[in-house]
Each structure stands twice: as C-alpha cells, then as structure tokens.
C-alpha cells in the first residue's frame, strides 16, 4: 500500500467527490483573496522555482478549501514529477553557486531580513493560516510569531557552525569542518503550515543547503505567500523552491530523487517509514523524521490542579488537537482523579469552538472532512470499547469541520483510543496510583514524542522525567516551545531533532582533514 501510505495525514484530498484534479491552464499566477478579517492580498498560485512563480509543466491545478466553510478558496498549480526535476536542478545549481561558498554571515543577514518581513506581514500570514487550515486566529498568530523567532534564531546560527581542531600531537594538524549536504527535500504537514516551513527551511538555509519543499496539499497557501518574502529578503534564486502537490507524486519523487541528498519529513509514522525506505532504496539520503505521538500528560495528586487542568487543555485542545505532540493520554493519580476529571470537563465545555476569525475563538475547524470523520469514528470506537464519554463526541453544525472537545474517562490501556494517534481534540483519561505503575503505562507506546508532568515535588518531577521515554518532557507546562530547545522523538516518533543547536546537525556533514606536518615524526 505504498500509494495510500504516501497520503501523509490528509487523505481527504483524494476524496473524488471533493477534490478533482483539473486541467486549468488559464489559472493566473496570483489571485486576489479577501480574508474574513477584511485583509485583501494577492495569493500566488504557481510553483516557486528559481525565485519565480511558474505554472506546473502539465498545468494541472488543485482546489484549496477553507475547512471552516467548506468553500473553495482558490486553485493552485499542482507539481508533478517533471516539476520536481526542474526544481531540484535549480536547487543544485544554486547550491553550487555562492550560497555554499559565500561568507556565512551573508546567509545570516538575509535570514534576519526574512524574519523581519514575516513580522511585517504577520496579520496577513495569520489570516491565511486561519483560512487555509481552519485554526483560530489566536493559534495562527502564535504560529507566525514562533516562525519569525525561529528564522531569526537560525540567522544567528549561520556564522556559528563550527568544526573542531583535534589535537593529535605535533606530527599532524587535524581538524573538522561541518559542511552542508546539498539539495534537501522537505515535506511538511498541514497542521502548522508556516511553523513547519520555518522549522525546515531555517536550519537548512543557515547551514548553506538549498531546498525543494513540498507543503501539504491541504494547506499550500502560506508557503507560497512567504516565497515572495524569501525573494524580497534577498535569498538567491534556486535556494528555496516550493512545490505544492500530492504526497504520492511530489513527495515520492522528492524521496527518491538521486540529486537530493537529504530528506526531512514531518507527518505520520506510516509515511515516515515509507520515506525512509524510499531514501534507502534510491541514494541513501540522510533522513530526518518528525512523526506521530501519543503523548502522556501526567497529573500527580500534589499538583496545582487548576493550573494542571489548564495545561491539559492546552495539551490536547490547542490547535484543535492537530498537534503531533498533543497530550492525548492524560494520567491522573487516583486520589484526585474524580476532581480532575470534573474540572477538566467543566473547563473544556467552556472552550469556544467556531469561526476561526472570531477573536474569542479558542478552537477552530479540523483541517479536512476526512480528519473530522476519522475523529468521529474514534469516538464510536471509544464508546464501543466501553470508555466513558465525559463530554463532547459530536460534530458542531453542518458546515465546517468543527468538533466538540471530547474527553473519554475510565479507559483501559489496551483500548484503541489509548493506543492510536487520533490527531484531534479527543483525549483519554486514565487512573494510576504509584509512580512505577504510571511509568509502565506512560511508556507503553510505540511512540515517544513528548510527555507532561504536573507536580510540585521537584524530586518526583525529575525522577519521572528521567524515566519517561520521550524526546520532550514538559514539567508544569505543555506544548510550550522555544526556538532554542530541541524537539523530536524517541521510539517511532522520529529521527533527529528540530530547533536548537541540534537541528543544525541534521543539515551538516563532517569532513575531517588531517595534515601531516612533520614528515620526520611517525
């Protein structure tokens, strides 16, 4: 099932009723769009290759819809294999030009400029993100700010990529350099279109690589919009190439392209596994994967319950639950279990779900109908498995993919709703009594992306944190990112780390140079 596993996280786009690829060669290369908040802007619709927007070779387009209204926003050109080849050629040419060899501070300079431009266009970008993804403006604004911060941080890294001088005695002079890899293929998901774009391009550009990036077919708009800013910032032609398109076509070609030296992917574990295989079979590309999760969020009896509940809510309902590190398994110590479940229920029912452009909205729409259906199907599964539905479990309204924040309590650890990633505003609450019991339950997962701990006991916090199998542990907070703190998974949640100094390792390779300087010495 290669084709289906390459659908990444949005098989909705293959629904023949909703999404029909069309020949639409007269699609202009940009269209005016009026956002519900009144902002009017020009949306590029072409592939971004060599700093220009161009139609795809076959002139096919696909439809982009607004998940909060289910209406078409626009079409954009759809890249196919031949477009990938052109983009890779452009990226390869750019890599072999001054991008790789120029003073790295120059790369930093243009990235600083890009960060400023993102901030300058923050409201438009937030609006695009809300329109295209369905997330509330509240969430979208946060994404834009995080993106700008991260690009700025990468700008600072550009001239701080060190090798080492390795002292091996006076007979030799030995040193290492960290060199860029070349053309990097990057495939990003639809849950944080702009933020994932920044996590991918930031470190790749800072280290001197060039890029062919495929945004998710559900959410291509922000990546195309910022391409204009990439050009305006002074990033040379061919360094960043953006190809909207489908996973099984564009993603597949990128994963197998012989001139792409590295592939970075964020999305489902199934697709990640497929990409890794494709990378291996083609040319042993370096691989970075940031995949699924089923992250435990733990509340001890001694925790500040009010704050813990607000963190649990941020953990699972933030971004409509479409977060790979969502705290989708809540574990509460038995003595406060009922109290926490009650408080969690009450707070969840107060969350405002609806029009993403309403300033008071916390939770917007799910990104696609298939996601909505998938989530609702898990509600049924949960009920059938005997879990107690505490609140939610239903779609809101008929138009737009809205769903109520949903809590299942009294779950058993072998239930599917506890085991499988649902990727929506749906959470299970389990009970534990001892730390050992908790650790066993929390670590009983094929994933290992993140975890949360709520306690006032410093010893317990650190002890439990040390024992959890997770790439990120949040203590008395959740979904709390910083551009300098690495992010990535244990187990089947991924390979490599994004953000922080660690992200730079994903985009460099070490060259060791050893010079014999005294022929008389052995």
């Amino acid at each position, binding site marked *: 099932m290669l084709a289906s596993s390459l659908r990444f996280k949005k098989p909705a786009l293959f629904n023949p009723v909703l999404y029909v690829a069309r020949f639409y060669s007269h699609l202009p290369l940009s269209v005016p769009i009026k956002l519900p908040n009144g902002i009017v802007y020009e949306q590029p619709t072409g592939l971004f290759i060599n700093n220009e927007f161009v139609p795809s070779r076959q002139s096919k387009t696909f439809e982009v819809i607004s998940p909060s209204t289910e209406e078409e926003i626009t079409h954009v050109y759809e890249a196919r294999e031949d477009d990938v080849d052109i983009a890779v050629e452009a990226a390869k040419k750019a890599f072999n030009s001054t991008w790789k060899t120029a003073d790295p*501070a120059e790369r*930093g*300079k243009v990235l*600083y400029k890009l960060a400023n431009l993102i901030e300058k266009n923050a409201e438009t970008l937030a609006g695009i993100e809300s329109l295209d993804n369905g997330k509330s403006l509240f969430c979208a604004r946060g994404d834009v700010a995080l993106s700008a*911060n991260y690009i*700025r*941080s990468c*700008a*600072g*890294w*550009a*001239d*701080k990529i*060190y090798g080492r001088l390795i002292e091996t005695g*006076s007979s030799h*002079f030995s040193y290492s350099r960290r060199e860029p890899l070349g053309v990097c293929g990057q495939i990003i998901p639809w849950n944080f279109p702009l933020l994932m774009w920044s996590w991918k391009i930031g470190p790749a550009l800072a280290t001197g690589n060039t890029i062919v990036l495929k945004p998710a077919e559900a959410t291509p708009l922000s990546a195309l919009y910022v391409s204009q800013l990439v050009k305006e910032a002074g990033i040379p032609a061919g360094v960043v190439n953006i190809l909207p398109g489908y996973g099984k076509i564009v993603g597949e070609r990128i994963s197998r392209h012989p001139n792409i030296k590295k592939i970075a992917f964020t999305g489902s574990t199934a697709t990640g596994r497929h990409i890794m295989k494709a990378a291996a079979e083609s040319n042993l590309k370096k691989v970075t994967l940031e995949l699924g999760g089923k992250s435990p969020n733990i509340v001890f009896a001694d925790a500040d319950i009010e704050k813990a509940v607000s963190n649990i809510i941020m953990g699972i309902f933030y971004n409509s639950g479409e977060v790979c590190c969502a705290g989708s398994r809540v574990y509460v110590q038995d003595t406060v279990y009922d109290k926490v479940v009650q408080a969690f229920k009450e707070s969840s029912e107060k969350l405002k779900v609806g029009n993403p452009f309403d300033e008071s909205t916390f939770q917007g729409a799910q990104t696609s109908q298939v996601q909505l259906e998938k989530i609702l199907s898990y509600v049924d599964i949960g009920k059938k498995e005997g879990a107690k539905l505490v609140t939610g479990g239903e779609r809101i309204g008929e138009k737009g993919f809205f769903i109520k924040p949903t809590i299942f309590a009294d779950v058993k650890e072998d239930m599917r709703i506890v085991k499988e990633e649902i990727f929506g505003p749906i959470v299970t609450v389990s009970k534990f009594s001892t730390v050992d019991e908790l650790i066993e339950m929390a670590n009983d997962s094929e994933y290992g992306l993140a975890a949360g701990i709520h306690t006032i006991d*410093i*010893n317990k916090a*650190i*002890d439990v944190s*040390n024992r959890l199998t997770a790439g990120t542990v949040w203590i008395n907070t959740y979904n709390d990112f910083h*551009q*300098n703190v690495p992010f990535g998974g244990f187990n089947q949640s991924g390979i490599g780390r994004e953000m922080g*100094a660690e992200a730079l390792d994903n985009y460099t390779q070490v060259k060791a140079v050893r*010079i*014999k*300087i*005294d*022929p008389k010495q052995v």
Partner: protein
Amino acid sequence: MTELPEFHELTLPNGFSYKQPTGLFINNKFVPSIKKETIDTIDPSNGEKICSVYAASEEDVDVAVKAAKDAFKTTWRHTSGSDRGRLLVKLSELCERDTDKLAAIEAIDSGKPFEQNAKGDIGELYNVLRYYGGWADKVHGQTIPVDDNKLAYTVHEPYGVCGQIIPWNYPLCMLSWKIGPALAAGNTIVLKSAEQTPLSALYLCNLVVEAGFPAGVVNIISGLGPVAGSALSTHPLVSKIAFTGSTAVGQIIQKAASSNMKAVTLETGGKSPLVIFEDANLEQAVKWAAFGIFFNSGQVCTSNSRVLIQEPIYMKFIEKLKECIDSDYKQGLPFGDDTVMVGPQVSKQQQDRILKYIEIGKKEGAKVFTGGYKVTDDEVLAKGYFVKPTIFYDVTPEMTIFKEEIFGPVVSCIPFKTEEEAIELANDTLYGLAAALFSKDITRAHKVARELEAGMVWINSSNDSDFRVPFGGVKMSGIGRELGEYGLTNYTQTKAYHVNLGLKL
C-alpha cells in the same frame, strides 16, 4: 567649568552636517558632567580643535554605574536572550544605515582616511553587533550527569555591571568588541571612550536609543583615564572590567580591579613578528607586511612591527616594501581623495613618541631605509600629526625599537638564517599578541606556527582578523579573548547547581 550646549552643530570637510552630542550618556539621556568639566577633541589632520565634550569625574562614574546597576536589576536581567539579540541586530542595522555619518565622524576625530579606512571600521562595527545579536539566545549551560540522586547543571550568568575602557585607534570597532558580547550575555555597561576620540561613541548613543534599548543598559562616558577610567576600575559595583590599550595601563587596571576582585579582560600591547621564509610568495608577503604596519598609520596593537626575513631574500624584501609604500600607501588628509591610505597619527603626543623612537633607533645603529621623519615638505600635511612610513633595517634584538611597542608606521627588519633562529627571534619579546608567517611549505608553516608564542597566528597573511575568530594575547599582551564565541566567556560567570533528588544523610 564650562557650560556646553547639548549639541554642537558640526559640518565636516566632506559637507556632512550633524548634531554632535556633548553630554555623558547615562540612562539613555545626554547629561552634563556634574562638575561641568570638559575635554577638547582635536582634528589630528590639522591640529585644530573640533569641539569640547563633557568629561566624567568620579561622581559621574558613580551615577553611571548606579544607573547600569539599576537597569541590570530591573530590566536587563529579565530581558530574554531573544529580545537582547533583537536589540543588538536592530542596532547593527541602524549602524549600517548610518555608515557614512559614523565613518565621517570617525575620520575627523581619529584621522582615519574616510574612504579607505573609516568606512571599513563601520562595517566591522555592524558585523560584530549582528554577530553577537545572534549569540544572545545561544548562551547555554550544561547538564552534567552525576548519578540518579543528583541533577547537576550550569548556567552562564552575566556579571552585572561591566566597566569597559576603549582606545582611540579603532573607536567604534573597539566599542563593538566590548558592548556586543557584554550585552548579548546580559550585562549592563558603563563604557569610557578614549579622551582623544569621544565623538563617534556619543553619536552612536542616539542609535542605542533608536534601537530601543532600555534606559541604563548602555552608558557611555567621555573622560580621562586617570579620572574616569580609574573610578571605573575601582568602583565596587562594577563586577567586571575590560580594557584595550597599553600594557602599562593594563597593569594599573588589573591592580585596581583587585579592590573588589573584578573579573578582568585585557587586550594590551604587542610587538608582533612577521616571519618570511625564502620560499614565500614575495609579492604577497610584501603587500601583507605593508598592510600590517602602515594601515591605520601603524596604530594597531597587532601590527607586524618586527619583520624577520630569511637571508637570501632580505634586501630584496626591503626594497620591495619601500616600493609598496610608494605605490600603495599614499599619505594624505582623511577627507582627501579616495586613494589616501595613511592619515595622521592620532595626537601630537603620539607623533612625538614615534619620532623619539626613530631617533633612538638611529642612535642605536639601526639603518633607515626610507622615512624616519615627520612630514614637513607638504604645507597642508605639515599642520597635522603625520609621520612618514619608516623602514628600519639591520635591527638587532638588543635595540629598543626591536623591544618596545612604537604604535606608529615604523617597521624593523631583521634577517635570519634558519627556522630555529626565526622562532627564537620571534619569541624574544615580552609580548605575545599576534604573529604571522609566509611560506608555501605547508609542513613548515604549521610547524613554525605551533612554536610561535602568540594569541593569533596568520599564515600567509597579516592583521587579517575576523569577528568570528578569537582575538587576544599571551604573555603581557593580555588576558582573555575577544570576538568569536570565546568573547562571550569574558562576560559570563558559571553558576553550578546541584539538585539533590534523594541522597539522605
């Protein structure tokens, strides 16, 4: 006691008019000094007074330090690294925007040729600020595995108030080397500019405000070393002092810093050797050697003031060096034509000092190949503090001009026979700031480089610094390193945390 206007309206020889602040910059405001004392700043290209600015007394230093302390406590230590970085990058952008203005002020005040020298300094200024802006959110501690019962980690904390005293040879560059890493690491600053060159730093204060730095984070005072510099070095609320200047003053500062055990960074004098082997690319060696001693009128702490040349090419090198001076190192007014490379010395005092060394050199038996006098043949230049680029040859290690730092366009050429002899001559000095060597032989280059006692070694170049590469001296050339990531370590102190997770007594 003189009342000065808040600004002087100045028009520079290139037509640039601007408002020159006169006050001490404390708490984001220009204020008069308490005692209304002033210093005159002189245009070294003609000896005329440019203007007066207020000079800080001990009391003013105290006010500035308290402002810095207050800012550290109330705002700056709570400002995230990301935000500190943004401010530094913003300041860098403003400096880049104002390149021509800042360069013009630098040229009038220090005598640097506007086109060939001062503008380059502004490039260094904004590159350094941007570079450290990038570091501000990347100053990280470590976690250290000990055992299951302990969480151990380190945090690199700022010192608090840093006193910084900078020289007159690179007023804005030295300012950036000082404030860039200090601010990135989270310190607040009281910086004293050199009394000869206070103007550009005061102008830059406008940009500090425009960039949005909170009040009290950057305080810049003009003043005399024995007054303001001394007050800064002994002030009990200053936790760290950084100085660039002469070795003699460095020693005074280190002694003064012992009053409250200030951390000390010193970047002091040098008598840096440049070793040229017979297999070198002679043409390049000549050009770099000339650059290393005549650029900035030889007023560079790393200048290659001693050139050691292997015997077979000794005289040939010296002849070519003179040719290079004649063709590439045109002396002239700072705002003269765009090809002027060598301006005046910064002050009458410096000019006299250099001329005195030239006389000593002659008396001790060194031979002058070219130069060796102050410029008198040109009516215009005769008014300024110009010294002819000077080559001494047949210099021996006992001579004063081999040993002492002259800080002017005066180079001593010494022949050598073997590698061993070259290394011995090169290291025969109290200083150890920089060294350079020319050879095409990769083995010899690396081998000799290892043996040179210096904080920096240039292979097949000279005075070829870069803001990402550490800069500083061994022996009496200094303590600590500026620039690069190493530069940050001067401005942080490590605090180790031990968290007991279960060890019971």
